[in-house]
């Protein structure tokens, strides 16, 4: 038993090592280090090797022992796909990158008009197809563990122990996947940790298999020629080829290589560079060749040496064990363990993305109707749902493993799974090569193929009388002879596997094509179809949201919920800068909406992103130009149309700019008039009180001393107000004329804010709670501290005066971004109406303020001061409350350091 314990210890150490590797890669990825490794074609190729699961690691030998060279087909299919990468794989990767596709379900649903229904169908089919495969991995690990135990004790371990081991392995895998697979919400950001771990495991399993092979050929058989002689002597040496099985299996493994969610994840989603495919196109077949090199020798020697009746699926393990090579056996065990774990991790990751993006999120959004605009972060929901999906999927796998009781040859379960996911192939290939393919066609094709697969392959796999009665096998469903699960349409004689693959895919493809021809795609489908099929001709996005009536602020709030505040603000800021209009919110142009949708799609999938945007924008409209671009095949016409489109976009942009400029001019002229009458008003109002009360004091007899004091006091207060107004006006005029001399000093932002808060609190009685993070405020500034302080005091006093929340609160956030220091003052009040935001920094603009204290010059002065200091102060949208952002150039902030 000591050795079994040692094995468990080795396992744990190995898993710990993987954790470390994944963690280091994750850290390096975040810091942008070790790109040469993280983004190398080598790692890409190795990560593709999750194709080789425990099934291929252990099962290939078993397969060879049972059926001779046929196991080669499993390697042949993928090799052909990779060698022919130019036609299919490259296209998939290009589409995946340009549409930020998150999974195969996402790709199919995006292609067919961003249909969420289709995504759900694909997701459910994928879960059903892949769960047995996950169970298979658990089974192979526990079986290999008990094999060790048997060798140690001379008897098999009891079933409970194996189950317990299976359970803990499942828990460990779930933990690993949750930890490293859900770090980034955006699936298009690479999960470096997982990819590197998979690559390391790929190396381990290759070395393990080669080591066993070398041991068998040179250690047991005694050399190459002896081995060949033994192979010739055995039954396996005879070259028996069943053409239909070879073709069928090669085809289905090629299809599975493209359609398996985990393959799609590593090949398309995690792809960094299209050129990596070129290298993988020869490196990956080479890897597969190495993996298969020693399969036959191991099988032959195993059959020779091991007692009859031992499971050939575990020759890789039992051969070294029978020869007393514990070390080699441990290495071989680790190889199998690697194959199993890497497959489970990536498959679960891919499936969980699909489940959360296409099933959980749409349901969540549906339940929170109108919720796309409510504030709050849904990223937590997405991540949580992804984590729960991971647990659920591994849980399914574990349950299936427990229920199936570890029966069946490994290869058989693997093939069932392959044939299941291969049903995606017609919809997938049709979608990227044939513009006529429609959503209805895809749905019907998938449905038909899947049903036939369930009936002819999945259900019969449980054996007669398990789910399907023996009578159904013999006489067909409902007694109809044409519906026999292993001889459809009454045509017997085909191998059951080939029969199932042939009929399911044939019926799938035929119904897909027929229904596609009979139905008419809707405009969005046509556009997406054109883009997918012609992905190399125009990677640009021609499709647009038309006549957007979306409120940028709603979009901002929604984007913040999905992408997080920082990322969303960065995106909107960049767009606003690009559009060249000040502020932080860009106009919701068709271009921008397109880009935003793409960003969101990277996080929650195409269909959901589309639904969220249309919830705000109010449905999509496909423009006539877009349709023309799709309908017309000729490249010239396309070019011309897109030129026209660009021209018209340019023109309407210019027109909009002119309109803006004109409005601005009109506003300026109005402001000039208003300015004079405002000055008059602001000066005359206090004067009125002063004059009236001084006349009262002068002319009225018999005023009591209390009244006299009161009226004198009013005169005094109004005189002070008048003085302050004149001071402000002079201050502003000096600032505007640029005659001001700045008194630059160094000081810390913390002290400056402390001072400003103290001053503001002294002058304004209304209480307000401050929320600060002093740590962020440790910035040394080199600027005119008095002037900057004046700005701070003004903003704080405004919040004190005008924040009408029950418990007024002012949050001061300091952040350093790039070349700027950004100080946000955000209160929990009601915000400022959009209409007033443009004018609030103008002179004399008072927004709903009813006290006579301010002349509405404060913000105008602030803006002038910040302009002199080389920074800016502006209104910050999308925070919920009233918020101002003060920006200082970094050079000024850090010059003193």
């Amino acid at each position: 038993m000591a050795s079994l314990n040692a094995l468990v210890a080795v396992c744990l150490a190995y898993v710990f090592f993987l954790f470390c590797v994944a963690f280091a890669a994750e850290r390096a990825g975040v810091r942008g280090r070790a790109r040469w490794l993280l983004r190398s074609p080598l790692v890409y190729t190795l990560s593709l090797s999750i194709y080789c699961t425990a099934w291929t690691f252990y099962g290939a030998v078993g397969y060879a022992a049972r059926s001779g060279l046929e196991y080669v087909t499993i390697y042949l299919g993928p090799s052909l796909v990779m060698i022919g990468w130019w036609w299919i794989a490259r296209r998939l990767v290009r589409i995946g990158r340009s549409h930020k596709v998150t999974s195969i379900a996402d790709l199919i649903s995006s292609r067919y008009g961003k249909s969420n229904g289709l995504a759900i169908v694909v997701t459910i089919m994928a879960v059903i197809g892949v769960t047995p495969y996950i169970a298979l991995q658990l089974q192979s690990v526990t079986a290999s563990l008990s094999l060790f135990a048997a060798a140690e004790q001379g008897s098999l371990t009891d079933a409970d122990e194996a189950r317990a081991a299976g359970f803990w392995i499942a828990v460990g895998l779930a933990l690993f996947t949750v930890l490293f697979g859900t770090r980034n919400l955006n699936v298009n950001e690479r999960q470096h940790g997982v990819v590197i771990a998979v690559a390391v495991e790929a190396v381990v399993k290759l070395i393990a298999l080669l080591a066993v092979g070398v041991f068998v050929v040179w250690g047991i058989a005694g050399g190459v020629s002896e081995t060949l002689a033994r192979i010739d002597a055995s039954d396996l040496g005879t070259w028996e080829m069943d053409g239909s099985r070879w073709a069928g299996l090669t085809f289905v493994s090629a299809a599975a290589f493209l359609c398996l969610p985990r393959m799609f994840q590593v090949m398309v989603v995690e792809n960094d560079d299209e050129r990596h495919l070129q290298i993988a196109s020869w490196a990956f077949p080479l890897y597969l060749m190495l993996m298969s090199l020693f399969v036959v020798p191991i099988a032959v020697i195993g059959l020779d040496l091991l007692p009859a009746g031992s499971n050939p699926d575990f020759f890789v393990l039992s051969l070294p064990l029978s020869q007393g090579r514990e070390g080699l056996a441990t290495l071989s065990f680790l190889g199998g363990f690697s194959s199993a774990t890497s497959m489970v991790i990536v498959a679960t990751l891919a499936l969980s993305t699909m489940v959360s993006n296409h099933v959980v999120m749409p349901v969540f959004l549906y339940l929170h109707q109108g919720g796309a605009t409510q504030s709050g972060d849904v990223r937590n929901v997405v991540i949580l749902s992804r984590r729960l999906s991971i647990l659920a999927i591994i849980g399914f796998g574990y349950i299936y493993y427990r229920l199936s009781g570890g029966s069946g040859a490994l290869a058989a379960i693997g093939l069932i799974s392959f044939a299941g996911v291969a049903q995606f192939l017609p919809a997938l290939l049709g979608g990227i090569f044939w513009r006529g393919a429609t959503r209805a066609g895809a749905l019907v094709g998938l449905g038909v193929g899947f049903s036939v697969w369930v009936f002819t392959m999945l259900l019969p796999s449980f054996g007669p009388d398990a789910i399907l009665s023996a009578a159904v096998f013999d006489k067909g469903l409902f007694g109809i002879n044409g519906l026999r699960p292993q001889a459809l349409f009454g045509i017997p004689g085909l191998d059951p596997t080939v029969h199932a693959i042939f009929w399911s895919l044939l019926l799938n493809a035929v119904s897909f094509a027929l229904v596609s021809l009979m139905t008419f795609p809707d405009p969005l489908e046509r556009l997406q179809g054109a883009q997918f099929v012609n992905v190399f001709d125009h990677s640009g996005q021609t499709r647009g949201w038309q006549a957007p009536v979306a409120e940028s602020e709603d979009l901002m709030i929604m984007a913040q919920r999905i992408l997080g505040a920082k990322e969303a603000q960065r995106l909107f800021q960049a767009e606003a800068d690009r559009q060249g209009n000040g502020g932080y919110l860009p106009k919701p142009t068709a271009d921008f909406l397109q880009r935003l949708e793409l960003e969101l799609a990277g996080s929650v999938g195409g269909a959901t992103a589309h639904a969220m945007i249309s919830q705000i924008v109010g449905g999509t409209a496909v423009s006539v130009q877009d349709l023309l671009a799709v309908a017309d095949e000729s490249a010239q016409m396309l070019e011309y149309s897109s030129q026209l489109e660009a021209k018209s976009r340019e023109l309407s942009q210019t027109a909009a700019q002119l309109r803006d400029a004109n409005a601005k001019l009109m506003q300026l002229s109005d402001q000039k008039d208003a300015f004079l009458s405002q000055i008059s008003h602001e000066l005359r109002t206090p004067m009125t009180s002063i004059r009236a009360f001084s006349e009262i004091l002068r002319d009225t007899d018999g005023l009591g001393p209390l009244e006299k004091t009161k009226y004198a006091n009013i005169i005094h207060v109004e005189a002070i107000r008048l003085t302050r107004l004149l001071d402000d006006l002079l201050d502003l005029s000096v600032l505007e004329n640029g005659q001001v001399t700045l008194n630059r000093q160094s000081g810390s932002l913390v002290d400056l804010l402390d001072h400003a808060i103290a001053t503001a609190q002294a002058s304004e009685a209304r209480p307000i709670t401050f929320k600060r993070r002093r740590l962020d405020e440790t910035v040394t500034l080199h600027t005119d501290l008095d002037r900057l302080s004046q700005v701070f005091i003004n903003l704080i006093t405004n919040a004190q005066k005008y924040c009408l929340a029950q418990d007024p609160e002012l949050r001061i956030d300091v952040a350093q971004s790039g070349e700027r220091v950004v100080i946000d003052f955000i209160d929990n009040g009601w915000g400022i109406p959009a209409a007033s935001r443009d004018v609030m920094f103008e002179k004399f603009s008072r927004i709903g303020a009813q006290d006579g204290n301010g002349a509405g010059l404060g913000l105008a002065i602030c803006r002038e001061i910040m302009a002199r200091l080389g920074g800016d102060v502006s209104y910050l949208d999308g925070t919920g409350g009233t918020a101002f952002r003060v920006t200082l150039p970094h050079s000024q902030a850090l010059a003193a350091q």
Partner: protein
Amino acid sequence: MGKHVLLVEDELNIIEAIRFLLSREGWQVDTHSDGADATDVIRSSKPDLVVLDVMLPGKSGFDILEELRGDAATADLPVLMLTARGQSRDREMAEKAGVSRFMTKPFSNTEVLTAVRDLLYVHGQRT
């Protein structure tokens, strides 16, 4: 009981001053500071005279005046308008809207008193 004057003005100190002046003459002075519902308040309190500021929160004095003149019940109500903007355009607008008397701030106390007295007298004659 003296005549009833309604003062629509939002500056606290000016309210205080005018109220003091008019009360001493024996008139009953009520005040209102919001422009938005000023018309309704005037209609329901039925004053003998309204002193109306131009720059009010919610609604401008001109709009209020137009509403008053548009209503038969208040079409003849004497309205003394005060403005601090003091541009000739304002006076024209006020006269077009049917103001009874127009004064620019800062005013002399006696002028206001005289104006109010005249308006109440004329109004009294007519009714």
